[in-house]
């Protein structure tokens, strides 16, 4: 177990390094830099902009910039936001909490409702809940997310029930995108587990009712759901970045989109690393849970 975890942590660190290098490479690929915006001010001479670029090291080759940054990152210095002229970590710290709060709420809401509804559907296939959830999934998947967000924002503005920029609006906008995907997978997993041969065999041996669900079906359904569980938080978080920007929730979302458009690439790098780290952590947690759950992984043949 220790070796397994140590291996995975090493993989995660490698992942983060690759991701950061990737962001730098992509940043080099995207044309224009932070100071390009100054070019639309007729009073600023392009020569002055070149000096600014030099000053911030933007004229140096990307690999040199990356090396300098990586050396700093090892020491905990993740660079400076060009726009805000302050350390990225300092800039992000107050916002990360807000994003995590929103994403966790939507994520928890998604999982709880997905599991409850999926169970309801699986207990009585073809029953009312089954039909309702299937409709819910279809409808939510079909509605363009952007449209839903616009409508919600418009309703919020017109009725004043939900405050623009408030938590409720952001959550209500984010959750409909999260629930159907989880629900769909939870339903499928429970259905598949309920139809597994060993469940059939258990039934043939006379095992039924709650024991069958608790002992046989749930653990079997958990297997695919745990993998999804690991991936899903990072997924919800990345969806929340856009939702935050649309609804005005003051998390990292608006800042991140702004930073991409503004080529404030240290901010982009750190936010991306954060996402990658969460993703890796989620997958790692999922693997650890699977390890605990599935004896095939931890015992010899």
């Amino acid at each position, binding site marked *: 177990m220790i070796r397994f975890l140590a291996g995975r942590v090493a993989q995660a660190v490698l992942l983060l390094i690759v991701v950061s290098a990737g962001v730098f490479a*992509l940043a080099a690929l995207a044309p224009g830099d932070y100071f390009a915006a100054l070019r639309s001010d007729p009073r600023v001479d392009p020569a002055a902009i070149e000096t600014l670029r030099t000053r911030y090291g933007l004229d140096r080759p990307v690999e040199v910039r990356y090396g300098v940054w990586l050396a700093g990152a090892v020491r905990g210095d993740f660079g400076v936001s060009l726009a805000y002229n302050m350390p990225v970590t300092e800039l992000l710290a107050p916002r990360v909490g807000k994003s995590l709060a929103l994403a966790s709420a939507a994520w928890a809401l998604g999982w709880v409702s997905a599991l409850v509804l999926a169970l309801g559907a699986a207990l009585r296939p073809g029953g009312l809940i089954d039909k309702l959830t299937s409709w819910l999934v279809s409808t939510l998947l*079909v509605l*363009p997310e952007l449209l839903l967000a616009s409508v919600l924002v418009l309703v919020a503005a017109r009725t004043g029930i939900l405050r623009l920029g408030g938590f409720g609006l952001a959550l209500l906008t984010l959750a409909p995108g999260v629930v159907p995907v989880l629900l769909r997978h939870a339903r499928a997993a429970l259905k598949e587990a309920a139809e597994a041969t060993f469940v059939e065999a258990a039934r043939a041996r006379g095992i039924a009712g709650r024991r069958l669900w608790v002992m046989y079906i749930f653990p079997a359904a958990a297997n695919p759901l745990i993998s999804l569980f690991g991936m899903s938080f990072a997924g919800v978080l990345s969806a929340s970045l856009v939702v935050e920007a649309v609804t005005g929730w003051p998390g990292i979302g608006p800042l991140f989109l702004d930073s991409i458009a503004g080529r404030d690439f240290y901010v982009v790098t750190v936010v991306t690393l954060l996402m990658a780290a969460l993703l890796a952590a989620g997958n790692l947690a999922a693997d650890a849970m699977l390890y605990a759950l599935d004896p095939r992984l931890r015992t010899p043949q």
Partner: protein
Amino acid sequence: MRARAGWKLAAGVLAGMYAAVLGAGYLAPYDATEQHREAPLRAPAAMQFERGRLVVADAISGRKVAVHWFSGGHLFGAEAPALYFPLGSDEFGRDQFSRILYGGRISLMAALLGAMVSLGLGLAAGLMSALGPVWLDAVLMRLGEVCLALPWLYLLLGVRAFLPLDLSPEAVFVVFVVLAGMLGWARPARLFRGLGLSLKQAGYVEASRGFGASRWYVARRHMLSELRGVVGTQGALLVPQFLLAEVTLSLFGLGINEPGVSWGTMLDVVRQPAMLAMNPWLAMPVLVLVPVFLCFQVCADAMAR
């Protein structure tokens, strides 16, 4: 039995949709880019039947004019200089109905193409990861994590900068859809990997190694049928995603450009609440999109079964 009928209906609707957009040249009364600057932002024309003929209000004068059928190389239309916009016009006086038809060409193709590319890559990577050696699994899955985490917008911005400017809007768009599809492999790959692993555990593959061809045949059939389920489900999720991707892409100037037209660019209006509130008919493409999504979903569900 009901589900099967639904599937046929959905497939029929989709086929009709594809036929309609391919036949846009005949079905649409105007060209998608034809501007009628004297009649911008007109609401859908009021129509009525008079003596067995369809009569509509001219978009310019408001006077009643008769609708002509099967003339001038179009299915229907009003006689010039009168203008007939069945679903209203946009800010340049372009006919919404015609634009929806022409726009569907790009949208319907792009969505399918994008979904197919990312499904195909995801399938290959997922199964390789599940059935291949352990190191390959680790490499592919970590690579997938990189793909999920990186801000691909940068890449798309970069690629746009390197593409020649005089590429046709459609070509640029297809490049982006394919690119987006290539970037979207990681999520389906994880699911296919899970599927591959469960199939491996199920012993079909094992069995197929040790026994006669008929076993292999059974295993393959079983595997294919399970794969079909996941592919169908993923397809149902991905097609709408790619249909909407162009709206998101257009947000960053990576969508289809004028004079090109697509549902995504038409839907851009949902981001402008004031415009939408004043001219609600501009949201008409949504009325087309929603049934298309539904049909894709019903079909995918049927495939999954």
